[in-house]
């Protein structure tokens, strides 16, 4: 029982990331009809927004410490962040420590700009092209973006720690009456799960309860009719692309402390996120969220030592097995609508 609870918890944060990326993918597909293979790169860019803010906050000037030497035997040059000079060491350290949460604010305008530029500059030219062309151009864009990041930040993962207040893990086992240390879960992953829930709820609320959202939903259902009513639906869809970019970016910002960002992290999530979209049902926002959590949890279960003893290698194929099973039994996915990608 405790092992099952543990893997459900483990699946939640992974599922949160899948759900957030798949939500953005579905938003773009549902509004613009574009299969965006560069969406994983937006997740990666978000993570590097956190890295960039951390580097800005730790911009330093050198102070020579005559009492110590560097690797060449010269007096050691110690980096002193400018933020120490401005706020003092204690406050400066606190600001640097909280750089990841602060990067949420930092990343939003950047991701809006990136999303807007991506849609207006490239993707809009491919609206009427076949899906294969869209996949090729967006996949190419993803490779370009990750190579740019690698050029500036290198290929190694870059540690992006969570605030010290969220270090360590919470003992769910002790709370639920199990032995101590049997069900532990890092605080930051709890934060990530809660954050994902808030973002998902905000996106749904925006689409459900605002006039803008209503128009977008109407456009998703019947773009032509909405256009005939004199509404510039293309402009609204461009905004939705930017919102999807922000969602992916925020997912990346907060994911940094879970796995140190590297230039390839977007690709690592992209394929699985597409499987999530297909399993959830093309164009279905609730389906994307549901499938994200479902596949995240299943992946965790498949990694249990007991399961691997019986079915070696199942952890590497479980998501695809589930996808095949669901598509055979429900060809439109869990919550897919009739007519989407069926023409």
């Amino acid at each position, binding site marked *: 029982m405790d092992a099952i609870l543990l*893997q459900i918890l483990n699946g939640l*944060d992974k599922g949160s990331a899948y759900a957030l990326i798949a939500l953005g993918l579905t938003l773009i597909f549902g509004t613009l009809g574009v299969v965006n293979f560069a969406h994983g790169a937006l997740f990666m860019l978000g993570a590097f927004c956190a890295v960039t803010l951390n580097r800005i906050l730790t911009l330093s000037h050198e102070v020579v410490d005559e009492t110590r030497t560097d690797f060449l035997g010269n007096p050691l040059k110690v980096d002193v962040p400018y933020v120490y000079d401005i706020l003092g060491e204690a406050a400066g350290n606190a600001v640097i420590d909280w750089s990841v949460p602060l990067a949420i604010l930092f990343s939003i305008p950047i991701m809006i700009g990136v999303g807007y530029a991506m849609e207006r500059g490239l993707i809009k030219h491919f609206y009427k092209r076949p899906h294969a062309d869209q996949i090729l151009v967006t996949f190419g864009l993803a490779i370009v973006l990750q190579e740019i990041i690698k050029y500036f930040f*290198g290929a190694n993962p*870059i*540690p992006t720690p969570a605030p010290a207040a969220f270090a360590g893990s919470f003992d769910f086992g002790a709370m639920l009456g199990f032995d101590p240390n*049997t069900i532990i879960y890092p605080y930051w992953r709890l934060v990530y799960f809660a954050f994902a829930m808030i973002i998902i709820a905000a996106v749904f609320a925006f689409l459900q309860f605002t006039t803008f959202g209503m128009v977008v939903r109407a456009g998703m259902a019947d773009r032509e009719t909405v256009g005939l009513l004199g509404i510039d639906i293309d402009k609204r869809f461009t905004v939705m692309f930017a919102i999807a970019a922000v969602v992916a970016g925020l997912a990346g910002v907060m994911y940094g402390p879970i796995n*140190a960002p590297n230039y390839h992290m977007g690709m690592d999530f992209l394929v699985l996120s597409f499987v999530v979209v297909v399993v959830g049902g093309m164009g279905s926002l609730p389906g994307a969220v549901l499938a994200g959590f479902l596949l995240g949890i299943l992946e965790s279960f498949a990694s249990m030592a007991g399961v691997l003893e019986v079915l070696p290698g199942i952890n590497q194929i479980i998501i695809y097995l589930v996808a095949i099973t669901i598509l055979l039994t429900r060809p439109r996915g869990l919550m897919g609508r009739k007519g989407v990608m069926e023409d």
Partner: protein
Amino acid sequence: MSKSDISRRGVLRTGAAVGAGLATPTIFTSQVWGGGHTGFTNAPQGDTVTLGFNVPQSGAYADEGADELRAYELAVEHLNGGGDGGMLNTFSSKTIDGTGILGKKVEYVTGDTQTKSDAARASARSMIEKDGAIMITGGSSSGVAVAVQALCQEAGVIFMAGLTHSNDTTGKDKKANGFRHFFNSYMSGAALAPVLAKAYGTDRKAYHLTADYNWGYTTQEAVQTSTEALGWETVNNVLTPLTQTDFSSYIAPVLQSGADVLVLNHYGGNMVNSLTNAVQFGLRDKMVNDKNFEIIVPLYSRLMAKGAGANVKGIFGSTNWHWSLAQGFTTPDGTEVAPDAGSAAFVKSFGEKYGFPPSQAAHTCYCQTLLYADAVNRAGSFNPCAVGEALKDFEFDGLGNGPTLYRGDDHQCFKDVLVVRGKENPTSEFDLLEVVEVTPVSQVTYDASIFGGDLGTCNPGA
């Protein structure tokens, strides 16, 4: 140029020499091969010789590859008489005089392994067939090393391995044309186990997470064997996919297993992520079996430690070389380790040129280039069989690891091994590891036959 070009050219140029070579009794030494610069693949023509540096320039190990390339460029500069000479000044063999190799100026070409065996073979093949590389060196993965080594054996050129730690490279997959300066999994296990037993006691239960490929298997086996010999129990060994990025589902069950030690047989991005996840789960703050829970990383790399940040603090591992050898230090048990002249020369040379200290990958690649050049000079020929004979059972010093033997039985270097630990109070982004013990070579030496394999016969190509 296709592979058939090499064969055709080789046959035309060296047919007679190969025939003579086949008839040559094995008692002949390298001096016999050294008779002339023909009869082998890519015999240098003119006054230059081309080396092929095959390193990961893209992919996850690109930073490590970039450091290897820096070291190669520095080595070429020194071989051609430039710079301050680096470890040429401390190397016990004095055949290299700054005039290149055998009087030929050293030039080089580079390839991108992408840390993929097929890409690495393709780039090595291109450098041999198109660019005329006489020797291939580099790499940051055992899978790549084994694949490129086999290609070099077929092509008839020397392969001087870069960073490859699997026992198999000079074990079951060893080749007559391949040589490794870097240490291996067995040596890591043999060096680490006594230090671990001393630090954590002999009554420990270990849980292994192991990267699901060649290097992971040999490292896990080495650490398990060495620690069990000292009384530890191995609770479980779980294989993790090489593509895994989030290890939480593998780490969460560790505490339920009753283990009080987690061994992460991971390297590169896998190591960074698994260690980060383990620390996030607070494993190191837990008490299990009335002992502090501990984590071990058998193979450390400073570049990777940088990726893991503060998570490496206090965690034991092993390394082939560390720049702090240049300055000397006192180990935690009070042993004074004097500054090493070779390391000092290399760190100074590399540091002044690039502005930061070299990694162990850079060190082994620099050493391999010098060792190859010296072997050619001693053999008096670029013929790979002559060079191989010169490297076999070659004893040297002054390259940063103390007295070292290039064992002829398996073409593996034997030297002291460093046991390191993540530093609690680093002074810079390079000062992440501290050496806690210099394990003497006698403790990590093994019988060449234990890993099987067969060197086969040297192939001069052509």
